[in-house]
């Protein structure tokens, strides 16, 4: 409901009536909750603040203001308003005048009786009396059947606009309303704290800076909201109330910057829009350096006009950042619609909240409140809830990406190992064949030709030694005899050599193992036996090893058992030895079964399908 009393007041003013008491009288009742602005007129002065006397106040200009809240423009230094309270009941009524905006510099309430001002209460920096609690409150007592005119004088610094509701509550009503408000504020901070804990927890797990930035942003935002709703007043003595405003301004700036940084990280601007990403960071650094640091140093020397220009530049920067994030968001949404739209929604609430605050606090347009609390609390709460959900989705995404990456890496690793094993076998084969057939044959022939023509036992012996050496070398590299004697024969030969040097008892048997097994397969199985024996020698501490080869209808099986100490489960698939075995088994499309029980030895089964043999 909007009522324009201007004309009435103006007429009264013209008639030379000193004070405009033409407004509706506020009737006292126990459930009183009255917006003072609706019942009064505002007079402002741009002069240097003076001690309020009726004569001085008479020089103030009547503001032609139809707002439903008090708005004191940039250049206003002092303002007053008048209102009339009538108590028609037979009871006295305790009331309280509450300011919604906690950064007015000073407020003084007078009762006007016979052209004289009688101070009723004061609060603020100059008055030296701080607010109790988060809001500014001045108590008013209305006696039975009392009707009084009141005059409220507000003081503020030039260059800083003020927008505030001033509400007259009965004490009872105030208790009820502030109870509800405090509950809502409590909810807000509850959500914030939970979100901070959540994001820090996630940061601890993932070490992803986006989560830490979100945490910092939430902290800055919480400080901003807290000071916006006047909680800084609780901690500050009256003469330092201005610092609350500093905290408020700093918090909003830092939260904006942190939000932009966080949004850039979340929207992966570095990847999708590297230039914009860099520009934004440069702008942020410049903004902090120029606006904050320089303004702090030369701020006092600035005229109001210069200050306004600075403020406009600052708003321009903020606008740029908002647009930059918006562009980044639009690009990101193409890549990731789900997370992108969630973020967009929270961004919308943030922007709406911020724009409304600027419109309300700076320009005096628009007022959106719920339960007497600024919209910013609700917009911010929704923003945080949505952002936390977004974050949760991102965690899911990261988890999924990591899993995909891990499996890709595993596949890559396996492929690499396969190639390595194949190449190694190829190389060994080539080298072994070269040594054995070519070099060995030539030396042998040389020896024979020599012995045929000469008789020199020493040289013959030397020849024989070279031949033996080459033979041993060739056999160490590749079991060329696999092709000649088959896998069981080659394994037997291997074990015979081992038996010479080791106390380990190795039983080997083969059961219907096919003679015509593919050479590659036989070689692979031979290498597996070698590898497993190496493992036993190195780690198992075993005394008996049973190696068996079985030929089945469509498969062959290698069974390798030892009675060693066994290995723990964790170790079982690590180690290049076992990995290369697995790789060989995989090459043959086989299965590798590894069962190891601590203290009960190890059993390895390799099953290779042989459909074509």
């Amino acid at each position, binding site marked *: 409901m909007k009522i324009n009393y201007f004309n009435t007041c103006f007429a009264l003013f013209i008639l030379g009536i000193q004070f405009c008491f033409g407004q509706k009288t506020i009737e006292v009742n126990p459930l009183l909750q009255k917006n003072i602005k609706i019942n009064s007129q505002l007079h402002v002065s741009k002069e240097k603040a003076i001690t309020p006397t009726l004569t001085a106040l008479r020089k103030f200009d009547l503001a032609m203001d139809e707002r439903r809240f008090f708005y004191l423009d940039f250049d206003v230094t002092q303002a007053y308003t008048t209102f009339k309270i009538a108590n028609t009941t037979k009871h006295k009524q305790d009331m309280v005048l509450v300011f919604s905006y906690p950064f007015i510099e000073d407020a003084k309430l007078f009762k006007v009786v016979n052209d004289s001002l009688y101070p009723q209460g004061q609060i603020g920096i100059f008055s030296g009396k701080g607010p109790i609690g988060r809001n500014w409150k001045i108590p008013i007592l209305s006696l039975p059947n009392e009707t009084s005119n009141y005059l409220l004088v507000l003081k503020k610094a030039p260059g800083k606009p003020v927008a505030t509701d001033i509400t007259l509550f009965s004490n009872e009503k105030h208790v009820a309303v502030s109870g509800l408000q405090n509950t809502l504020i409590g909810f807000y901070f509850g959500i914030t704290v939970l979100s901070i804990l959540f994001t820090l927890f996630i940061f601890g797990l993932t070490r992803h800076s986006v989560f830490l930035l979100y945490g910092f942003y939430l902290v800055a935002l919480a400080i901003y909201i807290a000071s916006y709703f006047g909680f800084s007043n609780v901690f500050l003595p009256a003469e330092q109330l201005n610092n609350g405003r500093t905290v408020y301004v700093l918090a909003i700036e830092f939260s904006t910057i942190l939000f932009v940084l966080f949004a850039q990280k979340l929207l992966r601007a570095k990847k999708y829009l590297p230039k914009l990403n860099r520009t934004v960071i440069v702008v942020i650094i410049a903004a902090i350096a120029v606006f904050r640091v320089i303004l702090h140093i030369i701020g006092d020397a600035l005229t109001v006009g210069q200050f306004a220009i600075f403020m406009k530049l600052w708003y321009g920067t903020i606008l740029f950042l908002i647009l930059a994030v918006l562009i980044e968001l639009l690009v990101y949404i193409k890549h990731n619609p789900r997370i992108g739209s969630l973020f967009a929604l929270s961004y919308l609430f943030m922007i709406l909240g911020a724009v409304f605050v600027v419109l309300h606090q700076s320009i005096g347009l628009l007022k959106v409140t719920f339960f007497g609390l600024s919209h910013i609390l609700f917009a911010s709460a929704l923003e945080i809830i949505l952002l936390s959900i977004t974050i949760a989705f991102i965690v899911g995404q990261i988890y999924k990406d990591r899993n995909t990456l891990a499996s890709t890496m595993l596949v890559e690793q396996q492929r690499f190992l396969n190639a390595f094993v194949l190449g190694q076998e190829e190389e060994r084969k080539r080298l072994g064949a070269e040594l*054995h*057939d070519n070099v060995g044959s030539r030396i042998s022939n040389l020896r024979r030709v020599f012995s045929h023509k000469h008789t020199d036992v020493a040289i013959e012996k030397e020849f024989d030694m070279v031949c033996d050496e080459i033979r041993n070398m060739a056999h160490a590299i590749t079991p060329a*005899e696999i092709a000649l004697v088959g896998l069981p024969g080659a394994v037997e030969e291997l074990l015979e050599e081992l038996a010479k040097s080791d106390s380990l008892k190795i039983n080997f048997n083969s059961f219907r193992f096919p003679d015509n097994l593919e050479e590659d397969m036989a070689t692979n199985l031979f290498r597996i036996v070698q590898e497993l024996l190496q493992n036993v020698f190195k780690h198992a501490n075993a005394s008996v090893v049973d190696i068996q080869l079985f030929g089945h209808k469509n498969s062959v099986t290698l069974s390798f058992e030892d009675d060693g100490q066994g290995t723990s489960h964790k170790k079982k698939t690590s180690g290049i030895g076992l990995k290369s075995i697995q790789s060989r088994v995989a090459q043959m499309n086989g299965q590798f079964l590894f069962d190891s029980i601590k203290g009960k030895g190890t059993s390895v089964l390799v099953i290779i399908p042989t459909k074509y043999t």
Partner: protein
Amino acid sequence: MKEKVKKILICEDHQIVIDGLCSIIADFSGFGVVDTVTSYSSLYSSLEINKPDILLLDLNLPHKNGIEILRELRVKKNPVKVLILTMYNKKTIISKTVNEGADGFLLKNCSSEDLLNALHHVSENDFFYYGEGVIKSKKKSGFQEDEFYKRIQLTSREKEIIKHLCDGKKVPHIATIMYISPLTVETHKKNIYRKLGLNSVTKLVNFAHENQLF
């Protein structure tokens, strides 16, 4: 008594070795190289045409190895005496050539006397000639006994599984008891059946009973 010159065929994939052998054999009286081949593809036609008395056979040959050639010759009942000439000096290989019906085994670094001895030996005798330094290996004997002995050589894990199977336990149950995977148990079971020549638990129980496994 003037003997007929024994015809020798050399099957060897290194020309230098062939050349060396030829020059040595050329000095031997009573032996002459009739042909040299480098792989099995040209071997059979040469055998057909030249009808050699002795074949000097390398083991490592391209496409088909010496043992396979030897086996084929014996399957075809070719009477040629086969003298293996190789770098390998391994028991399994030697016994394999013995089993496949070779007549002698020479190492490639043998002396010319050794070669001459071998040539004489295989043309005159039926028993195996072991060249200088060749590891002696006996022909596998008592194959049946050996197989049975092998059969009842059960590993401790196999015995454990047999015991559980004889107790009537199923594979998943045994896996749980032994802390191993069901597939491992299943594979062991399959192996045991193959080893013992069985195909059912009933037969396994009988086998265990007859052989007093427990």
